[in-house]
């Protein structure tokens, strides 16, 4: 392959490729995103390839990034019809080739079923999961082979870059991004155009562009999926950013080490882009010199904070520093540095291709465009989704996610990870954007959306997030280092049934104090999950404290034993109980919960086997997948 020396070269190459990628051509697209890979999709791709070879059919098998419907992996899409098959195994390959590829018939047992009618449907356009989404940033995910730059170029890739370099001044690019109203997708929502403007205004002989792909939020996988499924879009956004801020020749992609596949795909993308003359010296003959290197994170959540991330790239301990000076003035090695999130960069080519007005027409007053969410937890259909800003929680959870699995009740949606908060049932119709979420004590965060039902204890969930942030706190500032530790101690006491009513007040005071006085975003947002559950699920805290009861029945130490109706009042348990907690009442034997210490002695002697743990409103979950916790297959 020769280097592309100009925009005309790129256009010519796209012409040539377009002929090969003509629509209407049959293609088998196998999802090889991380989740489908785990479900065995690579073996499926191999089997289909082998089967096609044996049948002598000239149809290409494309290994794509995440197609979004992770719940039903391994996914296979068949073009031109756009049929989607879920749960495909290598043994289905022969049938798939014979019936679908050769005779263009839909295989009903592999096709997804409509959740309401149960009718097998072929095309994704008829599936509510896809129907109700607006997949713009994810437009190439699942469509192209992320390791092939030709695929990306054929799909219109690098067109925005060519146009920018040929026809636009850096100022024009910045004003376009500003007019589009793009805001940072890393969580804080800072206007991207303004950041770039500051980057352009900053003076320095060296400037840097950094892509923050240190997606450390547990429950988030948007950035991973974008880098795995469409790495070139992110690179293209970075190159455009480098051009816009000027004097910038070096860029970094900082990726978590926990994402081996994303690292691999970015590495390949960078190599290919260099080979094609889209990175390196004199990009597309425009005189722009810019190259990108990968830096791997080493397992510190705090390195997702921009100043900490830069120290980490410098090879130091990744600890945040006091701002100002802001990174755009003095960032990496003290030079002006423009840092944006993966999804932010992926939006850039889209805006340049379709215009600022088109982009600003999507979303809400203050938040434009779409947002990619990682939908997981207790919904029927988990996966990677994209909705316009302003979509409601109800639309995401019920229309796209298909509601709660096993017909249980929705309790809350946890948005924004460890720095976010819970959206309770009363806010189901809240439009999701940066401001509205802040208003209810949550935060957009990176876009992790974990749905919980009645079997999840909110106190325990808050404790889970706090133990995470406490563990990941870098220790530089006392409010975060000591404050989160103290909050965690209180929460531990509460879930063990040793809480006091005054603890709630303490939690509230501590939380507000830590939010106000911490050095960086990690500390400022760490109390979020606790404060928001205190606000909306106070009764659960009170149940733990006043009644020593976990309403969800999930807190180990608060599990209660009860005697079932099969009891024949033999009295064995009464004799055995070391606490003398079993009494005779009008309605037979009963356990006094204040005396019982859950030792289980009564359970072991009961001849009727009728003494068991009482759960709250729901049963506890054992997570092994064999107690009906597996995926709901009503689409199948």
């Amino acid at each position, binding site marked *: 392959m020769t280097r592309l020396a100009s925009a005309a070269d790129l256009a010519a190459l796209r012409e040539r490729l377009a002929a090969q990628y003509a629509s209407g051509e049959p293609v088998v697209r196998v999802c090889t995103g991380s989740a489908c890979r785990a479900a065995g999709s690579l073996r499926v791709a191999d089997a289909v390839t082998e089967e096609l070879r044996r049948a002598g059919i000239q149809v290409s098998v494309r290994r794509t990034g995440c197609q979004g419907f992770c719940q039903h992996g391994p996914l296979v899409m068949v073009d031109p019809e756009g049929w989607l098959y879920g749960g495909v195994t290598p043994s289905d390959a022969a049938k798939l080739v014979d019936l679908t590829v050769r005779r263009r018939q839909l295989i009903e047992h592999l096709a997804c079923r409509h959740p309401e009618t149960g009718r097998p449907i072929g095309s994704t356009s008829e599936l509510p999961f896809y129907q109700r989404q607006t997949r713009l940033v994810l437009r190439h995910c699942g469509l192209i082979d992320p390791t092939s730059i030709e695929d990306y170029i054929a799909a219109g890739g690098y067109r925005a870059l060519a146009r920018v370099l040929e026809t636009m001044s850096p100022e024009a690019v910045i004003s376009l991004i500003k007019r589009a109203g793009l805001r940072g997708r890393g969580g804080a929502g800072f206007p991207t155009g303004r950041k770039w403007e500051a980057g352009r205004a900053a003076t320095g002989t060296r400037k840097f562009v950094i892509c923050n792909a240190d997606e450390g939020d547990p429950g988030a996988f948007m950035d991973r999926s974008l880098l795995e499924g469409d790495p070139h879009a992110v690179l293209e956004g970075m190159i455009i950013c480098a051009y816009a801020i000027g004097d910038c020749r070096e860029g970094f992609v900082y990726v978590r080490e926990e994402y081996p596949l994303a690292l691999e795909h970015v590495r390949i993308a960078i190599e290919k882009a260099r080979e094609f003359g889209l990175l390196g010296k004199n990009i597309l003959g425009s005189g722009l010199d810019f190259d990108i290197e990968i830096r791997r994170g080493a397992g510190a959540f705090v390195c997702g904070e921009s100043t900490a991330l830069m120290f980490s790239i410098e*090879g130091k301990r990744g600890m945040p520093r006091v701002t100002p000076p802001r990174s755009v003035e003095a960032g990496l*090695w003290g030079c002006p540095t423009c840092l944006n999130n993966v999804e932010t960069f992926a939006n850039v080519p889209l805006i340049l291709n379709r215009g600022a007005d088109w982009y600003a027409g999507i979303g809400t007053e203050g938040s434009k465009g779409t947002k990619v969410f990682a939908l997981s937890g207790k919904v029927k259909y988990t996966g990677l989704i994209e909705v316009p800003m302003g979509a409601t929680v109800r639309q995401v959870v019920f229309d796209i996610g298909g509601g709660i699995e096993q017909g249980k009740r929705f309790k809350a949606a946890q948005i924004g990870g460890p720095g976010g908060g819970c959206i309770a049932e009363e806010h189901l119709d809240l439009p999701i954007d940066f401001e509205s979420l802040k208003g209810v004590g949550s935060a957009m965060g990176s876009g992790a959306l974990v749905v919980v039902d009645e079997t999840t204890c909110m106190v325990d969930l808050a404790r889970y997030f706090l133990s995470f942030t406490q563990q990941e706190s870098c220790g530089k500032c006392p409010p975060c280092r000591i404050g989160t530790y103290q909050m965690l101690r209180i929460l531990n006491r509460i879930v063990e049934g040793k809480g006091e009513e005054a603890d709630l007040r303490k939690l509230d005071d501590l939380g507000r104090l830590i939010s106000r006085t911490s050095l960086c975003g990690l500390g400022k947002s760490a109390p979020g999950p606790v404060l928001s559950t205190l606000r909306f699920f106070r009764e659960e805290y009170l149940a733990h404290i006043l009644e020593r009861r976990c309403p969800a029945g999930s807190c180990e130490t608060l599990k209660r034993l009860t005697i079932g109706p099969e009891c024949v009042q033999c009295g064995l348990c009464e004799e055995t109980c070391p606490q003398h907690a079993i009494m005779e009442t009008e309605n037979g034997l009963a356990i006094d919960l204040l005396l019982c210490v859950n030792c289980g002695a009564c359970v072991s002697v009961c001849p009727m086997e009728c003494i068991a743990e009482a759960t709250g409103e729901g049963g506890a979950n054992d997570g092994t997948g064999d107690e009906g916790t597996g995926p709901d297959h009503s689409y199948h």
Partner: protein
Amino acid sequence: MVTECGTTLLERTRGIVAPYAGREGMLVHALQDVQGVFGYLPEDALRVLAEELGVSLSHIWGVASFYDRFHFIRRGRNTVRVCTGTACQVQGSRNVLQQVEKLLGLRNGETSPDFSFTLETVNCVGCCGLAPVVTVNNEVVPAPEMERVLADLRKGNGGND
């Protein structure tokens, strides 16, 4: 297999670090590469690193001990990580961890005496759609299949790092 003493470790470390000498900010990268080869950060290797990069050993220790993924004691040939991300947590990762602990006869953070397995937790591997999951040597495995995968590893007498 790593020989703790002698020239092999020193030479290998020099080979790993060579491309980074004199370049700014390569310490974390160099540490990752050293760990990639030995599976952990042997003290002797860190001494070589300090020499080659021209920084003090205490500085290297300070940086390496900050990050979760660096280890200073020898680890198992296979690393099993139980994901404790939010989605896995909600879907019962605690019980998965208990199960794996039972299967391997190890507690979280331990390495088996014959260095076949190391068990630890990871904050999120971004496979929330399949929660709860476990990773075995960087391959994501849904929890229900874990038992089979571990049994295969045992039979095959361990995979690679």
